[in-house]
C-alpha cells in the first residue's frame, strides 16, 4: 500500500469530506426509503459529536439531519475548503498564521452564540450554519497544508515508519512554520 502524495492530500481530504457530509444527509433519505434501522444507526454514530436537537437542525423530507445547523455549517465549510484546495485555491493566511486565522474565523460563531443567546439577533438555523461554515472553512484550510506535510513525511520515511515519529521536521514541513 502506498502513501498518498502531497499533491493528492487535498483530493483525499475532499473525498473524505464528501463521504462525511453524505453520511450527514443520509438519514432522511434512508428513512424515506423505509430503511429506518439504517437511519437510526447513522444518527447514533453522530450522537457523541452533536446534541442533535431537531429544533436546531435542518430538515430534509420532513426529517432532521443527525447534526445541528451549526455543525452542518462547520462540516460544509470544511468540505468547501477541501474542494477549493483540491482545485488549487489556497488561503495564504491559513499557512502564515494559523492561530490568528482560526481565532478570527471563530468570531462569527462566538458572536452569533452570544448575541442570539441575548436575544439581540435571529437564532435562525441559517445564521448559525453560515457562522459555522466560516469556522469550518478556516479549519479545513489549515488542515490541507498539514496533511500535505504529513504525506510528505510518510513518503520520505516510507522505508522506516518509525523514523516518521523520531526525526525532527524537515523542509517539507515548513509550510506552516515561521509565521
Amino acid at each position: 500500500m502506498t502513501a498518498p502524495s502531497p499533491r493528492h492530500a487535498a483530493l483525499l481530504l475532499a473525498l473524505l469530506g464528501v463521504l462525511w457530509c453524505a453520511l450527514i444527509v443520509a438519514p432522511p433519505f434512508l428513512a424515506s426509503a423505509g430503511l429506518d434501522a439504517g437511519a437510526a444507526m447513522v444518527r447514533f454514530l453522530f450522537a457523541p459529536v452533536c446534541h442533535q436537537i431537531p429544533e436546531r437542525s435542518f430538515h430534509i423530507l420532513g426529517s432532521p439531519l443527525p447534526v445541528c445547523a451549526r455543525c452542518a455549517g462547520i462540516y460544509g465549510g470544511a468540505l468547501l475548503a477541501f474542494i477549493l484546495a483540491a482545485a488549487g485555491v489556497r488561503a495564504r493566511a491559513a499557512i502564515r498564521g494559523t492561530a490568528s486565522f482560526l481565532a478570527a474565523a471563530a468570531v462569527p460563531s462566538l458572536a452569533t452564540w452570544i448575541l442570539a443567546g441575548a436575544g439581540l439577533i435571529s437564532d435562525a438555523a441559517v445564521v448559525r450554519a453560515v457562522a459555522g461554515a466560516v469556522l469550518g472553512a478556516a479549519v479545513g484550510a489549515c488542515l490541507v497544508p498539514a496533511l500535505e506535510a504529513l504525506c510528505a513525511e510518510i513518503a520520505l520515511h516510507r522505508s522506516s515508519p518509525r523514523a516518521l515519529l523520531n526525526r525532527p521536521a524537515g523542509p517539507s514541513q515548513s509550510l506552516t512554520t515561521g509565521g
Partner: protein
Amino acid sequence: MQRRGNLLTSSLASGFIFGFLSGVPFVGALNCACCSLILGAGVLTSYLLVKGSDVPITFGRAAAGGLLSGLVAVPVMLVTWLAFSVIMGGDLQAEFDQAIDQAAQMYPEAQQAAQIVRDFGMVLILLITAGMCFILYSIFGTVGGLLGRAIFERRTAQPVPAPGVGAPPGGGWQGPEGGGPPVNPS
C-alpha cells in the same frame, strides 16, 4: 542530547485530562460542538510535544500524539461518566430507557430503532457506543494534533540530512551540532 518531547506522556496526559472532562456532567456537553474537547486533547498533545522538544516536531508525531490522546480519552470518559452516575445516585437503566424514549419521540423513524436498541440491552449499547467513540475520537484527536502542530510549532524547519550525513551510528538526526548541513534560514 536533544529532547524530542515524550509522545506517550504527552498523549496520556492530554487524553486523561480531556477524557475526564468529557465524562463530567454538563462539561462533557462541550463535545456536542464537533467533539471540541477531543480536538482540544489533540491540540494539547501537540503543545506539550512542541514545548518538550528542542527540534521542530513532525506532523506525523503530532498526528500520532493526537490519535493516541483520542484513544486514551475514551476509556477515561466512560469510567468518569459511570463514576459520576454512581456518585450522583442515578439509575443507569432508567436513564438508558429515558434516553431511548426521548430519541424515539425526536425522530419519525426512531420508533422501530428504539425497540431494536431496547432488545440489545444497556451493556451491549454501551460497548457499541464505546466502539463508536474510539473511531470518532481517534479522528478528531488526530485532527486536533495536526491543528496543534500548525498552531504551536513556530520554529524554522531544518533540512532532512541525506543518508549517512549527520546521523550517528545508532541512527537519529542530531542536527547541525551532529555534523549535518547548516540550518535553512528560510
